[in-house]
C-alpha cells in the first residue's frame, strides 16, 4: 500500500470492507473456474474485465485474456476472417480493458504489458497510442511505465529519434524537474551519436547546446537534482577517453633494475591501464628477452572475477640460477603486438600500439642468510631516517616519473574539450557566488579535476588546493554525505602527493638498519596519519615495496593488488571491518610482513565487501571441503574463519599483527598458527 493514511477501522468500515472482499473473492473464484476450464465466452470475458478493473495487478487474469484472444482469433468463422473489422474489434476490446485498468492504476505492470502484447499483434493506430501516452504522461510526468511504453511505441512505429528528442525538450521546457525526460534525452542523443546522424556527430556539435540547455534548468533551481545528473553525463561525454590506454608499468620504461640473487631471480612485469581491460595474452602483448630468461605462460589479470579482465595485469619472468651472472645485463622489451585485441569491458579496442623496454641485472649483495633469524620489522619513526636522494632505488622511481612525463601528449585531449570545460568552470564559479548549492560545488570540483586531468604535465596539479577546499566545505554543508566527500578528498590528496617526485619524496623514508633490506627494500612509503578514507593513484606507486598506511580511516584497500612488489604493509589503526576487505592481499605473493592490528574485523554484522570478494556465494571461488577438517570443528562460529582461511591460506607471511580486532580470540590464534606455519612473529611475539 502506498500513500494510504493509517487509521483504525470503525465497525462500519470493517463491514463495508468485508462485503467488498466477499465480492472480489467471488469474482476471483468464478474467474479461476473459467480459466481452468478454458471457457472464453462473452460473459466470462466480461467477468474477467470486471475483476481486472478492480485489481489490475492480477497477472493470471491478464494471461487468461491472452488465451481468450488467441482462442477467439483462431476459432473465427470464414466470414469473420474475411471481415478485417472483426479482428479489429477484438483488439479494440482488449485496448479498452487495458485503458480502464490503467485508469484504476497507471503503474500496473500487467496492464502495460498486456497492451504491448496486443499492439504487437498489429492493427493499432500510432495516433491512438500517442494520445493515450499524452494522457498518462501529463497526469504523471515521471511515470516510468508510460515512458517505457513510449520508447516501445517509438520503436514499433519507427518514430524518429529527433522527434522524440523534441518531445523531451517540450517536456523539460514545461517543467525542468523531470528526470525521466533528461534520462530519455541521454538515451536518444547516444543513439543519434552512434548512428552518426548529421547535427549530432561528432559530439562537440551537440554538447555546447546541451550544456546551455541544462544550465538554464540548474540555474533556475539549483537545489533540484534532475538536471545535475544530466550535466555530469555531459561532462563524462566531454572528457571520456574513448579507448583503453596503458598508463603505467613496472618496471618503468627505460629503467635499469637490479635484483638480488636468491635461488633464482623472479620478478613481475605489471601493466596498468586507465580502465578495466580484457584480451591480454601472449599474442596481444609480447615479451622479448634473451633465450635463457623464462617466462610465465601468459598475462594474468589482478582481479577476482573469473572473466579474465582487470585494470592491472601481471606476468612473471625468471632467470634460472645457473644463468645468473652479475656482470650481465638482460634486455626486456614489451610490445603490444595486437593492440586491437585488447579491449575495454564494453569492447572498445586499445587502438594505439605501444612498447617499452628496460634492463635487468643481478647483484650478489643483500643475499639472505638462511641461518640468520628474522628480526621483527617495525614501522615506528625510530626505524627510519631521512632519505638519501642519491639512493639507487630513488633513481629508479625517478626514471619512472620521467616516463610518465614523456606521455604528455595526451592523445585524446583536444582544444575544444579544454575550452568547453574552462567555460563551464567559469559558469559554475559564477553560480556559486549567489547560490549556496551543494551539487553546484561538487560539479565545480569535478570540472576542475577534469580540467587538470587534461592539462596534466605530470609535474603538478593546478587546481588541487581549490578542489580540496571545495570538498572540505561540502563535508560541512552536507553532513549526511560526509563520507562521500571525504573519500573524494582523499583521492585528490593522493593525486596531489603523487603528482611529482618532489612531493612524493616527502613521504619516502629510508630504513636505518640494513639487516632486513632484502625483505623491505630500502625505502618505505609512509602515508600514515593522513586521515585518508580511501586510496588511489596506484599507477604512480607500482614501485612500492614497503607501505605504511596506518592511522588512517580506510575501510577498503581495493586497488592495492596492483603493487606487486609489496612485501611489507602496515594497515593498523584503520577501519577495515572484515577479512573480505583484505581480498587484494590474495594477489600480493611477495607479502611477508602484514599489520592489520586495531581494525574492526569481526565487529560488524554486515559485511560490505562480501560480494566484492571471491566466494562461493558469487560463484567466484569454490568452497574448499578441506576447510572443516582443517579448522577442526563444526560449530557455527567456524564459518567466521572461512574468509581468513581462503585469503591468508595462499600467503607466505612471516610477520603478522592482528591484535585489537574483535575476531581475535584464543581459538582464532590457534587457527592462525596452523594456517601460517612459516610465521615467525605474531603480535610482536617471536614464535618458536
Amino acid at each position, binding site marked *: 500500500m502506498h500513500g494510504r493514511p493509517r487509521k483504525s477501522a470503525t465497525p462500519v468500515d470493517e463491514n463495508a470492507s468485508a462485503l467488498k472482499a466477499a465480492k472480489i473473492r467471488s469474482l476471483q473464484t468464478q474467474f479461476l473456474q473459467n480459466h481452468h476450464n478454458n471457457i472464453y465466452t462473452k460473459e466470462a470475458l466480461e467477468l474477467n474485465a470486471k475483476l481486472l478493473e478492480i485489481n489490475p495487478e492480477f497477472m493470471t487474469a491478464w494471461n487468461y485474456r491472452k488465451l481468450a484472444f488467441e482462442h477467439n482469433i483462431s476459432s473465427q468463422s470464414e466470414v469473420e476472417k474475411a471481415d478485417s473489422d472483426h479482428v479489429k474489434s477484438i483488439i479494440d476490446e482488449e485496448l479498452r480493458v487495458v485503458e480502464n485498468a490503467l485508469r484504476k492504476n497507471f503503474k500496473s505492470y500487467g496492464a502495460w504489458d498486456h497492451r504491448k502484447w496486443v499492439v504487437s499483434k498489429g492493427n493499432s493506430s500510432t495516433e491512438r497510442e500517442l494520445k493515450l501516452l499524452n494522457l498518462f504522461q501529463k497526469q504523471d510526468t515521471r511515470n516510468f511505465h508510460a515512458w517505457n511504453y513510449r520508447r516501445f511505441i517509438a520503436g514499433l512505429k519507427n518514430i524518429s529519434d529527433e522527434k522524440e528528442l523534441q518531445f523531451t525538450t517540450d517536456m523539460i521546457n514545461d517543467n525542468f524537474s523531470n528526470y525521466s525526460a533528461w534520462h530519455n534525452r541521454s538515451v536518444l542523443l547516444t543513439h543519434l551519436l552512434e548512428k552518426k546522424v548529421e547535427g549530432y556527430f561528432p559530439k562537440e556539435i551537440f554538447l555546447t547546446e546541451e550544456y546551455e540547455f541544462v544550465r538554464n534548468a540548474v540555474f533556475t533551481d539549483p537545489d533540484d537534482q534532475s538536471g545535475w545528473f544530466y550535466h555530469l553525463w555531459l561532462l563524462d561525454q566531454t572528457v571520456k577517453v574513448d579507448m583503453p590506454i596503458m598508463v603505467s608499468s613496472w618496471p618503468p620504461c627505460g629503467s635499469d633494475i637490479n635484483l638480488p640473487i636468491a635461488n633464482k631471480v623472479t620478478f613481475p612485469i605489471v601493466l596498468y591501464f586507465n580502465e578495466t581491460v580484457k584480451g591480454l595474452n601472449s599474442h596481444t602483448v609480447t615479451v622479448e628477452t634473451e633465450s635463457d630468461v623464462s617466462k610465465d605462460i601468459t598475462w594474468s589479470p589482478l582481479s*577476482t572475477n573469473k572473466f579474465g579482465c582487470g585494470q592491472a595485469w601481471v606476468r612473471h619472468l625468471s632467470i634460472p640460477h645457473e644463468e645468473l651472472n652479475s656482470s650481465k645485463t638482460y634486455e626486456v622489451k614489451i610490445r603490444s603486438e595486437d593492440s586491437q585485441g585488447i579491449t575495454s569491458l564494453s569492447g572498445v579496442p586499445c587502438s594505439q600500439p605501444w612498447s617499452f623496454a628496460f634492463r635487468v641485472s643481478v647483484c650478489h649483495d643483500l643475499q639472505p642468510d638462511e641461518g640468520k633469524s628474522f628480526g621483527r620489522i617495525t614501522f615506528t619513526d625510530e626505524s627510519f631516517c631521512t632519505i638519501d636522494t642519491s639512493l639507487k632505488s630513488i633513481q629508479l622511481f625517478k626514471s619512472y616519473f620521467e616516463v610518465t612525463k614523456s606521455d604528455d601528449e595526451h592523445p585524446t585531449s583536444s582544444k575544444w574539450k579544454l575550452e568547453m570545460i574552462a567555460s563551464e568552470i567559469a559558469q559554475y564559479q559564477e553560480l556559486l557566488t549567489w547560490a549556496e548549492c551543494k551539487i553546484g560545488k561538487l560539479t565545480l570540483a569535478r570540472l576542475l579535476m577534469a580540467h587538470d586531468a587534461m592539462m596534466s604535465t605530470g609535474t603538478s596539479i593546478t587546481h588541487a588546493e581549490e578542489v580540496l577546499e571545495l570538498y572540505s566545505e561540502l563535508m560541512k554543508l552536507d553532513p549526511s554525505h560526509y563520507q562521500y566527500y571525504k573519500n573524494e578528498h582523499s583521492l585528490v590528496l593522493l593525486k596531489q602527493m603523487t603528482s611529482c617526485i618532489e612531493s612524493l619524496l616527502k613521504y619516502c623514508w629510508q630504513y636505518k638498519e640494513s639487516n632486513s633490506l632484502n625483505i623491505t627494500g630500502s625505502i618505505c612509503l609512509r602515508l600514515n596519519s593522513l586521515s585518508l578514507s580511501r586510496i588511489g593513484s596506484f599507477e604512480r606507486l607500482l614501485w612500492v615495496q614497503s607501505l605504511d598506511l596506518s592511522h588512517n580511516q580506510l575501510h577498503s584497500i581495493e586497488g592495492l593488488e596492483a603493487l606487486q612488489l609489496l612485501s611489507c604493509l602496515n594497515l593498523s589503526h584503520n577501519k577495515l571491518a572484515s577479512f573480505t576487505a583484505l581480498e587484494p592481499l590474495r594477489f600480493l605473493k611477495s607479502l611477508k610482513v602484514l599489520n592489520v592490528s586495531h581494525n574492526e574485523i569481526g565487529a560488524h554484522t554486515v559485511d560490505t565487501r562480501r560480494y566484492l570478494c571471491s566466494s562461493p556465494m558469487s560463484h567466484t571461488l569454490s568452497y574448499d571441503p578441506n576447510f572443516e577438517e582443517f579448522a577442526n570443528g563444526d560449530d557455527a562460529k567456524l564459518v567466521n574463519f572461512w574468509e581468513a582461511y581462503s585469503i591468508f591460506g595462499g600467503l607466505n607471511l612471516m610477520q603478522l599483527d592482528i591484535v585489537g580486532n574483535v575476531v581475535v580470540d584464543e581459538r582464532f590464534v590457534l587457527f592462525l598458527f596452523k594456517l601460517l606455519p612459516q610465521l615467525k612473529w605474531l603480535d610482536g611475539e617471536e614464535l618458536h
Partner: protein
Amino acid sequence: MTKNDMFTYLLGVDGDIKFYRMGQLAAEKHTKYILQIEKKKDDIESALTEHLRINGAYWGLTTLDILGNLKAVEQEAVISWVMSCQHESGGFGGNIGHDPHLLYTLSAIQILSLFNKTQILNIPKVSTYISTLQNKDGSFSGDKWGEIDTRFSYLAICSLSLLKSLDKINVEKAVEYIISCKNLDGGFGCTPGAESHSGQIFCCVGALAITGCLHYVDKDLLGWWLCERQVKSGGLNGRPEKLPDVCYSWWVLSSLIMIDRVDWIDKEKLVKFILECQDFENGGISDRPDDAVDVFHTYFGVAGLSLLEYPGLKAIDPAYALPVDVINRLFLK
C-alpha cells in the same frame, strides 16, 4: 536486545544521545502483526493481494526469521501450502491454481531455503522451467507470455543459484543483457534505454553480485546516485525528486552494501525514519510515517534495519535477500 546494547547503539561514538526519543523497534508487535495477517481473510486488502500471497509469505516469514521468531509458524503447513502453489510446468504461482511466474517461483524457493527444505523440490524440473525462460539475447521472460525485464533476470539467477543450478543458463549472455540496461547515472532500468530505478538497480546489482560480475558496475557513479536518494527526513527515495519510502531502505541500502558504498549515507537518520514509520499500536511498518502498514513495508523496514546493524536483528544477505546464516548454510559446506 538488552538495555545496554540499546544504549551503546544510541550513544554512538560521540557519546551524545542522538535518537533516543524516537523509540525503538517494536519487534513483538511486528511479529504479532505478521502472524495475524496470515489468518485474516475478510478485508479488501487480503482479497486484493490473493494473487501475490506467496510473495507475502516470503516477506512475512523472512521478517520473522530476522526478528528471531520463525519458530512461531507451523513449518509443515507452510511448506505444504507452498508446494500446492506449484504448477505442472515446474514454476510456482502466486497462490493455489494461479499461473506460474518467476516472481512467485523465487519466493517459493526462498521460503523453502529459510526452512532448509529445497531438497523436497524436483530441482531439475524447477530449474528447467526457469532456464527455458531465457531468451537468445540473454534476457529473461517472466513467464511463457514473454514480458522481458531485468527483474526477471534477477529472479532467474537468484533462484538457480539457490538451487545450485546456474549452469543451466548462459550466465555470460545473461550478464551481457543486464549491462546493456546500464544508464547515464550508472543505474539500471527494466530494458535497454529504460530509466534507472532503485528497485531495478537492486535486481541488476544483485544478479551481478551473484554471478561475480560487480566489476561491470561503475561503483562510484552509481554509489553517488544511490546515496543522493537520501532526503532531508532521512528516508530514501527510489528516483530523483520523488518522495521517500521505507521500501527503498531495502532496494537502495542493499545495493549500496553490495558495492561497498553504504557509508555514503547517514545511517542514523535512516534508522530514525524507519522507526518513525512503525505502527506502535498494532504492529507493522508503512511506506511513510502515519500511513497504513502492510507486510511488504514491514519486511523492507525490518530488513533495512538489519542492514543498518540495528541491534538484536539477524543479519540479512544483501544479494539473496535471505538471512546470512541461511546463505552460509547453503554455500559454505
